[in-house]
């Protein structure tokens, strides 16, 4: 039961990673690509981490997995913020239509 739930979560996470990569490749400009990144980061990794937590051997391992997710979340939020403001400062207009 737990194992199959874990598999489902991992698969869902993988799907979001796929979505992130496709978005990275297909979206037209840097701002929309930002969205692709955050989907993969927040959700993809989150689901994978959740799936792995179900298999984890100890509470400490669960905690470590959670911290990793939080850290990458913070990093990607910061990166998005920095990159977006950089793009704006350097005169890249958002894609419209």
């Amino acid at each position, binding site marked *: 039961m737990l194992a199959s739930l874990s598999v489902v979560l991992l698969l869902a996470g993988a799907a979001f990673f796929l979505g992130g990569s496709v978005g990275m490749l297909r979206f037209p400009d840097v701002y929309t690509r930002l969205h692709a990144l955050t989907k993969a980061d927040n959700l993809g990794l989150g689901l994978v981490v959740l799936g792995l937590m179900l298999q984890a051997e100890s509470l400490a391992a669960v905690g470590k997995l959670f911290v990793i997710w939080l*850290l990458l979340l*913070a990093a990607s939020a*910061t990166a998005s913020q920095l990159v977006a*403001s950089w793009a704006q400062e*350097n*005169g*890249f207009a958002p894609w419209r239509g």
Partner: protein
Amino acid sequence: MAWLTGLPLAVDLVLGTTLLWLAWRALSSPDLFQAVALFIAFGVILGLVWARLDTIDIALAEIALGAGVTGALLLAALSQLQPAEVDARAAPSATGANEHQAGQPGQTAETADADEAQHKPAVFRALLAAVMGLLLLAALFGLGLVTWQLWEPSSGLTQQVNTHLPESGVEHPVTAVLLNFRGYDTLLEIAVLLLALIGVWSLATASNLGDTTPEPVLAALSRLLAPLMILVAAYLVWVGAHAPGGAFQAGSVLGAAGVLLRLSGWRLPAGAAGWPLRLVLALGVAVFAFIGIAVIGLGEPLLGYPTAWAKHAILVIELAATLSIGAILASLFIGGRP
């Protein structure tokens, strides 16, 4: 379902091919910034390869250095080499057009990284390239053949390491080799780091980083991350006694903390930038050498810790080495003398 057994091999093939492709692109793409970005990616993939090979200590060090100090060093050097790049790239409508012409206004011809000197005749160059290509292919073939020949299971020194592990003072084999069995190498290697820093300082290429006010979000992030990095460094030293981790990895993370602090505008207080900093930088070699020589007075050989004390001696050395490695790596990034 026999094809399933091929999955691990497929993973390794993808990793190997990606590694080769990244190396090739990093070495041949016309734009230097792209080259550096691909090189940083190369480091991450290499970290995955180490993980696949179960050489986790190396994976830790590769990731900690590649994503931390080395990457930051390369990017900082690039920013000083190509100061006008941003202006040149600012055409918002461009979709890949400008990546093919790295030489932009403000960059002189040499940053454009044209391949070969132009004064030799074309035929001569083609001939030279052909000869070199052949030689390299022959070398690749020979090296591959030798690797292939070496391909029979061999335990190397694993057994001897395991036999003497209880006397080493730590439970993790790699740490035992680094800090005890081959501690002399490690001592000298920290000296290599310090030497590089002395060399960098003697060149006095003052970095112009960190003189602008940091972004608020960056300051917030570094306030969050820097203490965490120090915590993780301490954890890595502690865990190194019985699992992958240790002074190098911890020092690399510590160095990365220094890089992050510097990037977010933090500077060492003026009072600490003189000899206190130098003391920290020299601490690793000094403590290691001091303990290594002091044991001679106890009738032990050079760098031979008595078994009863080995654990404590190694811990003290590791702590000093971590501090020094971290400080040296951060100072290497900062560049110019404090």
